């Protein structure tokens, strides 16, 4: 039995425009998403903001009802068996919300332990064990309002693990964390997989997905555009190469002209200190350096380099495809 199965999941939202003449508009957030995650697997769901990652997770953790399609977690239907699903899953999201700031970290865990039905005798040792695991030991009796973002994030992780769930949903858990905090959290996630937990992780950070995930699905505009191991996805653009051109002020029109060149797979712009870097993914057999420089004619150009594609390039190529 698969740990998580999503079959043609769809979700639309109604939004309103106007104040006096209100009009209702339907937005398709998720359009027919399907995937299967095996027990013990760490599955990554990657996609840009608004791609439908969080909406997909919220359907799987029973907070949203799918408009169409179905999903099962450990064989239980997420709509019909919602309460049974909730007993077996943990949910951790990124950011500082989701914490009772007027309570201490310990009291937060104590309250949620009760809500998640942790037997009274097990609560204390379980909380102690988790405080140790997430590195909050010694600070647990301070009010959460005084915690740093990283500490609140670690408190989230401890809360999500209180009832020792078989399946964990981690929605951008490292967002906004400093590099050390993010690295520690990644190591905690890796140890959870080693302990046999099934994890569905969403993240914006490609190196994180590359380092942690057994398999990845890339979601764009509500649909899955690629699925496979990190190596599979890299191979998808592996036949090509990446040209990086340092520029100082490039406009949208120029980027569009470069994008239209034959042999160009994807174009993105990264901000690096005072400069911008135009990242152009091309097919392997084409040489486009002079053509690209021709379009940048008139603008100041700095260093030019060529390299092998990374998972991030694969991701950019997938989510920028029309």
């Amino acid at each position, binding site marked *: 039995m698969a740990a998580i199965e999503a079959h043609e999941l769809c979700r639309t939202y109604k939004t309103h425009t106007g104040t006096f003449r209100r009009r209702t508009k339907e937005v398709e957030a998720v359009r027919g998403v399907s995937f299967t995650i095996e027990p013990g697997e760490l599955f990554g769901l990657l996609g840009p903001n608004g791609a439908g990652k969080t909406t997909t997770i919220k359907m799987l*953790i029973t*907070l949203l009802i799918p408009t169409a399609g179905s999903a099962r977690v450990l064989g239980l239907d997420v709509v019909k068996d919602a309460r049974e699903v*909730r007993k077996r899953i943990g949910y951790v999201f990124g950011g500082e919300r*989701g*914490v009772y700031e*007027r309570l201490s970290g310990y009291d937060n865990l*104590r309250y949620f332990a009760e*809500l998640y*039905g942790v037997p009274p005798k097990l609560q204390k040792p379980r909380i102690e064990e988790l405080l140790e695991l997430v590195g909050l030991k010694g600070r647990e009796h301070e009010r959460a309002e005084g915690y740093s973002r990283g500490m609140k994030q670690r408190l989230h992780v401890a809360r999500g693990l209180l009832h020792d769930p078989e399946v964990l949903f981690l929605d951008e858990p490292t967002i906004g964390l400093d590099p050390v905090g993010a690295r520690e959290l990644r190591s905690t996630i890796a140890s959870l997989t080693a302990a046999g937990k099934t994890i569905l992780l969403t993240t914006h950070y490609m190196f994180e997905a590359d380092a942690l995930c057994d398999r990845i699905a890339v979601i764009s505009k509500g649909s899955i555009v690629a699925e496979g191991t990190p190596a599979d996805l890299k191979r998808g653009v592996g036949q090509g190469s990446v040209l990086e051109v340092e520029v100082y002020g490039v406009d949208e029109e120029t980027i569009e002209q470069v994008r239209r060149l034959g042999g160009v797979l994807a174009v993105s712009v990264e901000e690096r200190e005072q400069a911008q870097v135009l990242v152009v993914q091309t097919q392997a057999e084409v040489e486009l350096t002079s053509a690209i420089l021709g379009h940048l004619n008139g603008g100041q150009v700095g260093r030019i380099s060529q390299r092998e594609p990374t998972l991030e390039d694969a991701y950019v190529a997938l989510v920028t495809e029309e």
Partner: protein
Amino acid sequence: MSTLRLLGVGWYFQFKMILRSPFDGIGNVLYPLFFATTALFVFRAGQSPRTLVYASLGAAVMGMWSSVSTSAGSAMQRERWWGTLELLVAAPRHFSLVMLPATLGLATVGIYNLAATLLWGHFVFGIPLTITHPLLFALSVVGTVLAFGGLGLLFAVSFVRFRAAWVLGNFFEYPVWLVCGFLVPLALLPGWVRPISWVLAPTWGMSAIRESALGGTPLPDLLLCLGLGAAYVALGVLVTDRVLYDARGRGTLSLT
């Protein structure tokens, strides 16, 4: 047993949060004193000490009710702002059992309101603090708190479904003062108002508190108050699943 434990632990932490809220704290300290002062100035014209005790008890229950009607709404709004509402819904326990301790916590603040009002009336306006049946008085106060908590649950469940419903909490604050006879005897109200008063537990809670303080027979009123409170809880539990299903369908749980 585990349900009682959940209610107890939930009440403890919710009450702890209310006590640590500067906004709620200042409101809860000052409002009862305003209510008591206004009511006692109005009723002092009557010259009768019994009328003043009547008004003092009415003002006390006004404070209790205000604590529940306005705070239940803002408490739910806060759960939305804090991003904890989704976590409460995602918990495997029945949502009504998660919410009831929160509304009971708010109603418990009402005990302070009652004590503060009576002491303010005593020390500032010289109203005698004589309770004819102390035990029945205490039971009436506890019964009223429980019934208010039950009514608060109904409010809270509607706040989960309708985001703007917390405004209605404020709207209900003043009419209930009148309809439930906190300041004016029910006999003075128009006949068509009476059925509304009868289905509201605060009417019977108020009456039980007055009867026990002034020397009457509070038990029938107390039983009615508790019965109605239990009915509110039962209704709250029954509609919770439907309301949550609807909120999950509309995707409004994460909205602030």
